[in-house]
């Protein structure tokens, strides 16, 4: 068995492909090394929900046999990965990060897992998440069956949620890539806090069959990885029509970086306030420098305003109505009280109060939002803003105010403050790109585009990453 150094745990997919192709390492050795590392170090970050070491090694042996016979399946063949524990995997527990579902086992696997298996990727384990993907509105990072997600850059800080384990496992080099989900912010936030590249695809591009439903009209699945290029290769493997997902857009995705438009042809909208008044002071130098990199690449940065809508309130109403319907049996049974976070329990209970009239009003506003963004993308190719305004908060800091506390002060400037709910309401893709540090903690940009513009976002990401090395930085050992 070849000696495996630490570098391999932080290698990109093409780099791993090269090592397997040159026989420097076999798929079995790679799977064994990653799966053991995930099993040993995953609990250090509360990132692991279920180790699958034996199964991973078995899958990898089959990959090696295929490779010996010359049966190649593409760039994901032999690459170890993890999935958020919101995806069903036949015969194994799928807890959705929540105590009431701790013993849940499905007899079928999610389409994404089936697709990755077909591409020869090796499932090394299931990854921790905020309970029920946090739709009820949780106050503390500890809202999870596996405890608070700890950030590999500083374990006194949060990894972000709800795809906590997916982001932390990639950041700590426990898997080569991971699959997470976003309803509103659950990919962009943990990717930003953990300093990894991640993609929220257009609504409907990746099948959600076998994934826990939190909101039928908002849920999306997407990759966390080491680079924009890796995200493109993974999306190529998992996207596509699926008759088993009623929300499937019926579209395929082919990663085609060779046809990327040159940066100087691109107009990217931004709000200067996002990079100054709205940004944490400690993060401003990193955000400023990141804008500088885009300018150097020749991109035309255009001052832009988001269309004026009550994004957050619209999203909250839709999410509450849909999750209320989905988890009504849990709420009615009283087992909702077994959840870890009191605000989350209260939020789920209160979600039953949303009337049909209010839900429909929100969905009609959503139609206007989609139209307004279609018009906006006629004048710019993409939007750029900080992924989060600053670095990861301390692990015990309340994420929403305590009952009776004074409401948070209104933002000093609005900028693109509604971009995460707006992007999710309009079903838009977003790419999170590590862009520097605030102290010892990573911060990131988010680049948002029109529906099905993933190739454009990935090209912008690839250009940015060819000029920076933030995505290659590793957390302390």
């Amino acid at each position, binding site marked *: 068995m070849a000696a495996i150094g630490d570098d391999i745990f932080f290698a990109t997919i093409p780099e791993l492909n090269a090592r397997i192709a040159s026989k420097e390492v076999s798929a079995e050795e790679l799977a064994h090394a990653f799966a053991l590392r995930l099993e040993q170090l995953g609990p250090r970050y509360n990132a692991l929900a279920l180790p699958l070491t034996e199964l991973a090694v078995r899958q990898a042996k089959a990959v090696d046999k295929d490779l010996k016979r010359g049966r190649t399946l593409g760039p994901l063949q032999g690459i170890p990965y993890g999935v958020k524990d919101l995806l069903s995997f036949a015969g194994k527990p799928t807890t959705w990060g929540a105590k009431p579902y701790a013993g849940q086992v499905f007899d079928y696997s999610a389409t994404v897992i089936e697709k990755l298996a077909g591409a020869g990727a090796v499932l090394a384990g299931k990854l921790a998440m905020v309970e029920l993907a946090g739709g009820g509105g949780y106050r503390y990072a500890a809202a999870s069956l596996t405890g608070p997600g700890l950030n590999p850059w500083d374990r006194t800080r949060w990894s972000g949620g709800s795809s906590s384990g997916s982001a932390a496992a990639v950041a700590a080099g426990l898997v080569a890539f991971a699959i997470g989900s976003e309803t509103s912010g659950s990919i962009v936030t943990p990717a930003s806090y953990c300093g990894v590249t991640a993609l929220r695809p257009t609504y409907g591009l990746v099948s959600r069959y076998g994934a826990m439903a939190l909101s039928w009209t908002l849920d999306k699945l997407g990759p966390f990885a080491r680079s924009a290029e890796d995200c493109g290769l993974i999306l190529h493997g998992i996207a596509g029509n699926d008759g088993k997902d009623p929300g499937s857009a019926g579209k395929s995705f082919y990663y085609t970086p060779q046809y990327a438009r040159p940066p100087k042809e691109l107009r990217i909208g931004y709000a200067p306030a996002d990079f100054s008044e709205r940004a944490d002071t400690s993060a401003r130098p990193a955000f400023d420098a990141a804008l500088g990199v885009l300018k150097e690449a020749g991109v035309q940065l255009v001052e832009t305003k988001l269309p004026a809508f009550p994004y957050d309130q619209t999203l909250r109403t839709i999410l509450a109505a849909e999750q209320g319907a989905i988890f009504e049996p849990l709420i009615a049974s009283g087992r909702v009280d077994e959840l870890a976070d009191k605000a989350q329990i209260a939020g789920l*209970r209160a979600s039953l*109060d949303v009337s049909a009239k209010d839900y429909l009003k929100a969905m009609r506003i959503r139609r206007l939002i989609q139209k307004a963004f279609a018009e906006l993308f006629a004048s710019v190719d993409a939007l750029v803003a900080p992924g989060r305004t600053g670095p990861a908060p301390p692990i015990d800091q309340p994420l929403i105010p305590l009952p009776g506390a004074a409401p948070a002060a209104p933002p000093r400037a609005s900028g693109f403050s509604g971009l995460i709910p707006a992007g999710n309401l309009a079903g838009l893709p977003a790419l999170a790109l590590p862009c520097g540090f605030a102290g010892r903690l990573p911060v990131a940009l988010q680049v948002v585009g029109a529906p099905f513009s993933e190739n454009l976002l990935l090209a912008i990401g690839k250009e940015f990453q060819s000029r920076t090395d933030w995505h290659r930085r590793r957390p302390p050992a």
Partner: protein
Amino acid sequence: MKFTRRKLAATLAASAAAAMAQPQTPSSAVPSEELNAARERIRTATDALARQEVPMATEPAFQFKA
């Protein structure tokens, strides 16, 4: 104790009515101020939606496929 058919019917009807009148399982895990705060958040959101003008012809953003 003897039950007439009339008494039995009355007892069953009363217990069924009591069951129907039972409120949703009360939460022992959540303080009432927490629940009130969650309800207030929903109310504030729907109040904001009420202020948003929507042209009458605007249909909800569902996509049904046949």
